[in-house]
């Protein structure tokens, strides 16, 4: 094809000009697409400039959590006023600060904040990612004034090989959460919650007899939460998920059978756990918030979630200890949360981060323990947990005194839980992989009246042994 001849004497012909413009435009579009693809911010917030130390911190409440957000921002302002050389940049990562897929993505993408929130059970994942800093040399009672009062067990969950990688800020253990209203309507003693699984079963029958789609007891069976609760329940009977050496499954026994049999009987003999199954955390709490659940296994902060996220009311809820087989539970599942420090922070940033956590999370009367501020708000004061400070320590006494003085929930409603402590056990190794396997057994007994429990446990045992034999996944 021949090109048309262009008039002489012009520096750029019209078609050539159009071509150049087109090229420039295309290059612009390409540049824009790349710019749009890129997520690098102009300020990563981790630098210290002009003598001021800047740190980014996540888990700031979202806009919908108005009071919590206002409290957080007030804490930041007060802290910065006290420490004019520190600037806190807050980042919100959703109502559930550690939604596992998001957390993993941030961790692997290296986009966590300088001081980042995580569960106690995240330590292995965080260590494997290579994103965390050893802060042993910085953590002491001068950087965190209440450090010596912090519960040793909680500290241990963020420690490996004598090295400290995080600071615990909340802890929990599971018990029986129950709806007082429904207990009353069903003629049950509100002050005397069931203490054994047989009593739970009886109470569930009475509550579900109220009708209107109310489940006397509700249970998880999907998204790994079924396996999580199976673990808590077998602990309550004195069982364990894996052998002491962590090499074999250890739940295919009368205790494992008992857990599944009780649930199956409640579903198909008593019809007291509702028709809708395959529930996971938000499903169950949505039903609970709507007043359709009589009892479930959970930690005290489940009531906070029911109120702040699922439109429930504090006055409806109370808690008893984890039920056992013939008496008190042998053990219960515990866990908690805290903050990690991103690798590569300067000494000043680590110290600033510790100072902030000490201020907002570990000082009686401040931040999460500012009960005077929380009392008139929709935030519960008087729940038995978190119980971060060792019983008898100075911080414990101070926190307890302020909590009792400002309680806005009926402390008595949680007395049965608080006054009957149950030994706490942590999650098994490779917890999520094991939970995923046990979901199948939990979903089976809650959806299939012909489910063969012996076979389910045998299959689950084989599968868990398979997971453990291949070295597990490290979670």
């Amino acid at each position, binding site marked *: 094809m021949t090109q048309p001849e262009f008039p002489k004497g012009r520096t750029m012909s019209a078609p050539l000009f159009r071509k150049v413009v087109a090229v420039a435009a295309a290059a612009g579009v390409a540049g824009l697409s790349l710019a749009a693809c890129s997520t690098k911010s102009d300020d990563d917030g981790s630098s210290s400039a002009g003598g001021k130390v800047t740190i980014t911190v996540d888990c700031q409440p979202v806009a919908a959590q108005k009071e919590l957000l206002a409290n957080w921002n007030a804490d930041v302002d007060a802290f910065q006023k006290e420490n004019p050389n520190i600037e806190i940049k807050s980042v919100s990562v959703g109502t559930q600060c550690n939604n596992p897929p998001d957390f993993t993505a941030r961790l692997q993408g290296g986009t966590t904040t300088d001081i980042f929130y995580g569960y106690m059970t995240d330590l292995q994942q965080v260590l494997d990612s290579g994103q965390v800093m050893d802060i042993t040399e910085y953590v002491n009672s001068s950087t965190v004034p209440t450090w010596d009062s912090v519960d040793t067990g909680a500290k241990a969950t963020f420690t490996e090989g004598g090295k400290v990688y995080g600071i615990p800020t909340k802890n929990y253990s599971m018990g029986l959460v129950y709806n007082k209203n429904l207990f009353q309507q069903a003629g049950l003693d509100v002050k005397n919650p069931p203490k054994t699984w047989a009593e739970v079963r009886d109470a569930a029958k009475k509550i579900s007899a109220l009708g209107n789609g109310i489940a006397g007891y509700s249970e998880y069976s999907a998204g790994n939460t079924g396996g999580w609760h199976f673990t808590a329940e077998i602990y309550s009977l004195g069982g364990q998920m894996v052998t002491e050496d962590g090499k074999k499954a250890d739940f295919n026994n009368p205790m494992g059978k008992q857990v599944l049999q009780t649930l199956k009987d409640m579903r198909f003999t008593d019809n007291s756990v509702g028709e*809708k199954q395959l529930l996971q955390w938000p499903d169950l709490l949505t039903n609970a918030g709507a007043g359709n659940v009589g009892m479930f296994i959970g930690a005290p902060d489940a009531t906070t979630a029911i109120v702040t996220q699922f439109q429930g009311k504090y006055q409806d809820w109370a808690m008893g200890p984890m039920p056992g087989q013939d008496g008190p539970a042998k053990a219960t599942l515990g866990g908690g949360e805290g903050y990690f420090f991103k690798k590569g922070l300067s000494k000043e940033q680590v110290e600033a981060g510790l100072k902030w956590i000490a201020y907002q999370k570990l000082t009686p009367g401040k931040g999460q323990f500012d009960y005077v501020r929380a009392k008139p708000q929709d935030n519960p004061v008087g729940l038995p947990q978190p119980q971060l400070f060792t019983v008898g320590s100075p911080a414990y006494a101070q926190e307890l005194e302020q909590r009792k003085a400002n309680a806005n929930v009926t402390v008595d409603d949680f007395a049965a839980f608080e006054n009957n402590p149950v030994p706490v056990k942590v999650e098994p190794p490779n917890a999520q992989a094991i939970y*995923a396997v046990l979901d199948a057994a939990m979903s089976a007994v809650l959806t299939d009246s012909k489910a063969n429990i012996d076979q389910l446990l045998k299959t689950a045992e084989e599968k868990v042994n398979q997971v453990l034999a291949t070295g597990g996944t490290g979670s």
Partner: protein
Amino acid sequence: MATITAHGKPAEVSGSRPLPPARRQSRRRRQLRNNLTGYAFLVGAVVCFAVFSWYPMVRGIIMSFQRTRRGETTWVGWDNYERIVNDPSFWTAWKNTFYFTALALILGYAVPFFVAILLNEFRHAKGYLRILVYLPVMLPPASALFLFKYYAYDPSDAGLFNAILKFFHLPTSEWMQSTTMTMPAMVIASTWMNMGAAVLIYLAALQNIPGELYEAAEIDGAGIWRRIWNVTIPQTKLILSLMAMLQIVATMQLFIEPLILANGAGTQDSATSVAYLIYQHGFFQNDLNGAAALGVIMLGVLAGFSFVYVRLTARQD
């Protein structure tokens, strides 16, 4: 006569003598200048593909042979593949995925084609009907699936499907809570959500079939099924085979349906798909390398299938 080179190919036919290097270079430069606009437009697409498709693919393959522990990445050969194949849900996930793909091929592939034929027959309100069929595609998949989960597949009699079944005195179902109904229920929801786009593509293909062919068939006494079999299907064969391949590749990557409708694995693992297993390993089990290995296996299976499929259909053509 063209000169034959040592490789048996004709040499450049641009005259009886090869061009001198200077002229060849200026010709290349002219060609380059002429095509500059095209290249410029390509840059954006190529860069985006490279960054978001090819690089992650290569990175995934590399990761599948590595293991990262305590921030240290080491080469571990086939260890990740061995671990992932030994995952208790590995074979269940593949079985479920193939089952879903097969069901989707029966239902999800045939239904849009027949809906398109039906729509093509309408003389009035064609535009409105097309919009109606396409509407579900505009609904975000997560919202559509939540609708199915909470309204259609409610296991009680209050659920939409159960209410309809009950009205006709038919047995009701537990839908997602039944191991046997989980897959068909996911296929129904998936077909409803996605068929709009396929219907429009089929409609476009149907409208390209010359009317005379149908007239001739009618004159020869062909009924509706005969016309579909002997005229419609042969005339839309190319698009039908392309859509079949696209559908199989897409349905093999089943993920959002189990995630939302079955809360992941479903009753007794009846909804676990390969893509969901990748998600479990990558985002819940601190096993990105295992997830990468499973991703590579899936890539291999899909690439192998696509290769064989293209070869087979090319031979038929």
